[in-house]
């Protein structure tokens, strides 16, 4: 048996299915923060490796990371271009000096590598968590974090509207095709104009859905405040608390080590 999450079917034996939904959101935020605070390459490499190991523990195929391969390549490209062509980070050896004044030293390469690791850590962590979450987890996670119910209602409605809007788009496009509009033929400008002409009926449909949904919401007595009950209930278990404490301690240690120096970039302060 498996559970359908946002990206895949996750085996029910996976430990991630047992985690409290709000803890999954907290883990996502904390790991992103930790990755952002760290600036040293070796700890970041350890963090990335640990996250990949967590994929194995959670029984998520590591090849799931490959869906982001194109994005990973783009990030690596963007960071490298930016730092190699546009930075002046001094080091012991300058390899290339450009006519516009920037240069590449060994510190430049190390810093670019560190930034890439930071992004990989954030990306892999969010993939790990999102691969184990359902839409219900996101909504109930927000509720159990004691955020306003309005926020979870809006997120839930957004997810539902996405599917409905895709259906509307297909219907409107097919209706226009039946009336002789071609979305595949013609110059780029003609095709762009044809696609842009879809905007007006889609906007009208969206406004109508807003009106209908607001009537439905009013008829069901939805209010912004007040006590609510929920169909699903989640209880905090001992392993949830242990994980929460572990993440809190990890974040505190990261902040301390960044402030005292070990997690700062080894090339700072800049050698002139």
């Amino acid at each position, binding site marked *: 048996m498996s559970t359908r999450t946002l990206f895949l079917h996750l085996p029910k034996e996976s430990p991630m299915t047992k985690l409290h939904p709000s803890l999954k959101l907290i883990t996502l935020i904390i790991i992103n923060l930790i990755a952002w605070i760290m600036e040293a390459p070796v700890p970041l490499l350890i963090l990335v490796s640990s996250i990949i190991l967590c994929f194995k523990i959670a029984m998520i195929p590591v090849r799931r990371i490959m869906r982001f391969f194109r994005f990973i390549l783009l990030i690596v490209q963007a960071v490298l271009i*930016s730092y190699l062509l546009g930075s002046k980070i001094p080091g012991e050896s300058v390899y290339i000096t450009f006519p516009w004044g920037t240069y590449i030293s060994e510190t430049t390469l190390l810093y670019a590598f560190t930034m890439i690791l930071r992004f990989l850590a954030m990306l892999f962590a969010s993939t790990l*968590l999102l691969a184990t979450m359902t839409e219900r987890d996101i909504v109930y996670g927000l509720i159990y974090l004691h955020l306003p119910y309005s926020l979870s209602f809006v997120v839930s409605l957004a997810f539902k509207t996405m599917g409905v809007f895709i259906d509307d788009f297909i219907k409107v496009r097919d209706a226009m095709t039946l009336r002789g509009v071609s979305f595949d033929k013609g110059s780029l400008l003609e095709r762009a104009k044809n696609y842009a002409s879809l905007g007006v009926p889609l906007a009208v449909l969206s406004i109508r859905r807003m009106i209908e949904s*607001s009537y439905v919401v009013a008829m069901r007595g939805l209010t912004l405040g007040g006590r609510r009950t929920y169909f699903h209930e989640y209880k905090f278990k001992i392993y949830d608390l242990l994980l929460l404490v572990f993440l809190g301690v990890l974040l505190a240690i990261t902040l301390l080590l960044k402030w005292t120096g070990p997690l700062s970039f080894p090339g700072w302060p800049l050698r002139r």
Partner: protein
Amino acid sequence: MEYGQFFIVGLVIQAVLLCVIVLLHSAMRKDHPYRGFMKVLIGILLLSLFWLLISFIWQLKEGWISLLALPFLCSVVTEAPKKRVTPMHLVITGITAGVCAVLALFAIIFIPIPGLPAASGFWIPAGFYFVFTLWFGVWGALGGHIATWLGMSYFAGFTLHVWADGAVGDFIAPMVCLLLFKKLFRADPELKTRKDWVAWIISVPIASLTCGLWVHTVNLLFGVITWPFWWVGVVTYFLGDSAAVFIVGTPLLKTLSKYAKTAPVYVKGILT
């Protein structure tokens, strides 16, 4: 100029300007037409002082330029709602988010920018959420914020960088346009007169520029780009975003504003 000197000079200039504008604001009578605008200026200077401090901490000399981004939001806080905020407003946000999230996915898939992750050469949802913000106030902008977060995160992971960069930027941009269009110019979304057209043509590029400044300063803070590429990013963002809003948004405004105004979901002010 040494960094410390820059900080002190910036601090003194902004403190003096703040005192002058606070005095002018208090001297104005309550129904003075520019009193609201003065509040915006006070917000600008308060947040620019805050941003100056942040950029001093991060040794980010260029960061103060992004002070244009956040302060316009101050006037949202100063606006007293004339009607109650109801669940209808949440429905507006949820449906806008769902619609624009799908458009964001289309834009990233069909019109990507080589070298820039989870970005698009023609950000179609901008046309929609700018227009929805003019029709539905802050609720449309919140929808755009959630939509960009969902759309970009599908490709780039639910990372802190994506939220701070694209999602917050796509809240700031339509809000700046709304405040300029409705508060400053007091223009009509139906674009009936020349003044309305001038307001639209001026508001959109300023909003896009503000968002570009924000997005690329966040990229700078996260280490994705370096300072020499900051200007490149801002200019390309400004041109691409403005083009998308003008091409997609203008027909929607001209054609559907009258219909939107008759809908019960139409929001006259910023919040209600």
